[in-house]
């Protein structure tokens, strides 16, 4: 049966039951039902059934929430679990950092021995990942920028963090790196594959700049990885609870690792 432009379908009838049709379509359905008493009876039964179900289940939503379903304690529990896990990882990380130094010293004196140590495994885990490539490219573009190195200045840090968190759909914070001699300059939003990335920039008294590149949707947690570009710029990167982080700078590895640890400690 043709009513208006389109045939009346079962989807129209169900949407009619739910009161979700546009007025003209609703009128068309009513005309149709007027001409088809059996369908009208069926649809009326559906409507009555819907009303009854709603009345019956209405009381369920008015019940007070039991204490164990309060969200705040569950969040607190999740955070303390997260903190415990981070602490364990940080200890593992500290151990890896020690190996890195031992490894490079041993590597220096023991050239040619090529014994695989944990340190060489870490330094050789230089898989080129899009996240790192993007971070390097952002670093190169903006670190040399004189006039507009950042989009939002550190003076508006609260606004910057709120804005970037909103765009990434994840709670961010700009780590405080003054203990490492670096001050926040500001940050910007960047394109990154199917979503945005955030970048924070820091500098020290000597004008050395660092970038912390952050993006969401990096689901496989990884430990710290190290990558150098062969021209003096290097990065530590890791993934943690859905977020990917790349700390990039023209610093030596030990120094960069110390900053990376400071960042890691403050996030989350």
């Amino acid at each position: 049966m043709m009513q208006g432009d389109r045939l009346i379908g079962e989807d129209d009838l169900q949407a009619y039951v739910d009161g979700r049709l546009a007025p003209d379509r609703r009128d068309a359905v009513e005309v149709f039902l007027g001409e088809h008493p059996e369908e009208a009876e069926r649809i009326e039964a559906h409507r009555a059934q819907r009303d009854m179900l709603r009345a019956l289940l209405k009381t369920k939503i008015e019940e007070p929430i039991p204490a164990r379903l309060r969200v705040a304690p569950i969040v607190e529990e999740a955070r303390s679990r997260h903190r415990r896990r981070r602490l364990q990882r940080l200890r593992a990380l500290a151990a890896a950092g020690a190996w890195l130094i031992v490894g490079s010293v041993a590597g220096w004196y023991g050239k040619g021995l090529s014994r695989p140590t944990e340190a060489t495994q870490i330094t050789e885990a230089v898989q080129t990942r899009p996240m790192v490539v993007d971070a390097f490219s952002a670093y190169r573009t903006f670190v040399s920028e004189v006039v507009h190195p950042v989009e939002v200045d550190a003076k508006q840090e609260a606004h910057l963090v709120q804005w970037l968190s909103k765009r990434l759909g994840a709670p961010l914070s700009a780590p405080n790196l003054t203990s490492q001699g670096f001050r926040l300059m500001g940050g910007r939003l960047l394109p990154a594959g199917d979503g945005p990335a955030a970048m924070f920039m820091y500098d020290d008294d000597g004008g050395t700049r660092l970038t912390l590149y952050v993006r969401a949707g990096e689901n496989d947690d990884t430990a710290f990885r190290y990558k150098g570009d062969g021209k003096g710029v290097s990065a530590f990167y890791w993934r943690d609870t859905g977020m990917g982080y790349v700390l990039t700078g023209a610093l030596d590895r030990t120094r960069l690792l110390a900053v990376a640890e400071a960042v890691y400690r403050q996030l989350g």
Partner: protein
Amino acid sequence: MSMDDLSNLIEPHVPALRRYAWSLAGDRDAADDLVQDCLERAISRWPSRHRDGNLRVWLFTILRNLFLSAARQRTRRGPHLPLDALVDGPTVAGGQDDRMRMRDLMAGLDTLPEEQRSVLLLVSIEDLSYEETAKVLGVPIGTVMSRLSRARDRLRVHMESGPAPSERKAPDLRRVK
């Protein structure tokens, strides 16, 4: 995001989650366990949540998936909806006839396969759009519409013919599939 912000975002959805969980699990404690698991999972996955996603749809999806995976692990279906507690409670107005009809309705709801029951509950009770419902179930909208229609037809038949004699006798119904 502070803890308060997260609580303020999620907590308003708890009553609806409880109601949906109760309609699925059929038992208050089981339902609240399900909601608690759902909240824990939602909070632990919060950082990797799809940006700009619909929070309500996301929460319902988590809850349903938890229910389904628990249901798959059960060898036997759990207890049916506690009709007496709901229908005979002081909160339902109306006379004996109304209560009988409501009891029939709940028993009928209980006979629906989960995929139809979920569609009916999410659309009719929780007021999710057809598109949102399709997202929760991970099916096309057309499938949502046909499940909705089948669920309502089936409930109507149940209401008009009344519960099967075996159901009528047994106060401790089990879901029939």
